[in-house]
């Protein structure tokens, strides 16, 4: 790896682009992700930029237990994200379905069945600091060899 690539990797690891998708949750976790953007937690001071465009994203936050309508769309979104990419499951719903995982509900958790998940943040909802820590801890994994993975 050349020195230039190393510098690029370092710089990139300080500018993480995040996109989030709600595949059928109660919106509680969405609000916690929004709270990360607020000055109290201020996600942008770590260089994490949340803008809902999968084509520019590095990290995809998946929120909610998967409803049947989302199965194909979630796959499309995941395909749109350029390599290298990771997905982080936010909250209990993508992990286990939480309170929606009952007889008679139209959900099919866990989300790992559809896209590969790199990290899970349990909680209903998780604290914004937990979400922040999860994104910051998966970021080195994707940016360690970002340059080599470039097509």
């Amino acid at each position, binding site marked *: 790896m050349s020195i230039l690539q190393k510098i690029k990797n370092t710089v990139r690891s300080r500018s993480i682009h995040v996109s989030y998708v709600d595949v059928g949750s109660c919106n509680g976790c969405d609000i916690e992700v929004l709270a990360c953007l607020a000055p*109290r937690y*201020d996600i942008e001071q770590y260089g994490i930029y949340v803008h809902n465009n999968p084509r520019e994203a590095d990290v995809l936050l998946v929120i909610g237990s998967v409803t049947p309508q989302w199965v194909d769309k979630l796959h499309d979104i995941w395909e749109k994200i350029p390599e290298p990419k990771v997905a982080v499951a936010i909250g*209990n719903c993508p*992990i286990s379905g*939480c*309170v929606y995982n009952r007889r008679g509900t139209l959900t099919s958790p866990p989300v790992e069945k559809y896209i590969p998940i790199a990290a*899970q943040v349990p909680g*209903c909802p998780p*604290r914004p600091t937990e979400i*922040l820590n999860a994104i910051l801890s998966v970021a080195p994994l994707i940016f360690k060899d970002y340059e080599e993975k470039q097509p």
Partner: protein
Amino acid sequence: MRSIVYYLREFLRPEWIRKFFFAKTAPLETPSYFKDYPSLTGNECVACLSCMMICPAPDAIAVLRTRDGWEPEIYPGHCIRCGLCVEACPEAVLASGRILDVTARDGTALWSWYRLEIDDKICMRCGNCCVSCPVNREIDPQLAGSGTSSSDEVIMRVEAGRVRILHEEKCTGCKTCELNCPNRAIRVARMVEGVQIGEAEA
């Protein structure tokens, strides 16, 4: 001119430059009263399963057998951190945030009982519920096969052509009657109510 010089000097201060580029607000600390996943206090679990019965999330808590007794286990991907298991536990086996302190200070508790309900429209008066009930059998061993009984102490008995519930409070919630009912006419429901010590006396 003076102000320009002032600002240049101000912005060239090493401390200012350091703060401008590197200062971050420290990751906010979790407050001590945060209601996190329940942790064990070390008290002995008596396996009353109150925690499992009150838990609103599926598969979030299980009381497991260990080498020397029982122990509740919390599953983080399922637990919603509501803290009801901490409140419901009569032995204070679990602790989370300041729930135990607050319940001790306010003298609050969760009180539960079992409610029996018989749908007279579908009940066919076979008396299976009265006969199969283990509490009934203990109180009145002479309980007839038709469910009639001469004892007034039984939970329920067939009386004047229909099942009459006499002592609901004696029900232990085993649901044997539900299992033995041929057309699901009898229902056992666990009711939970929050009570405060002073309030109950008044």
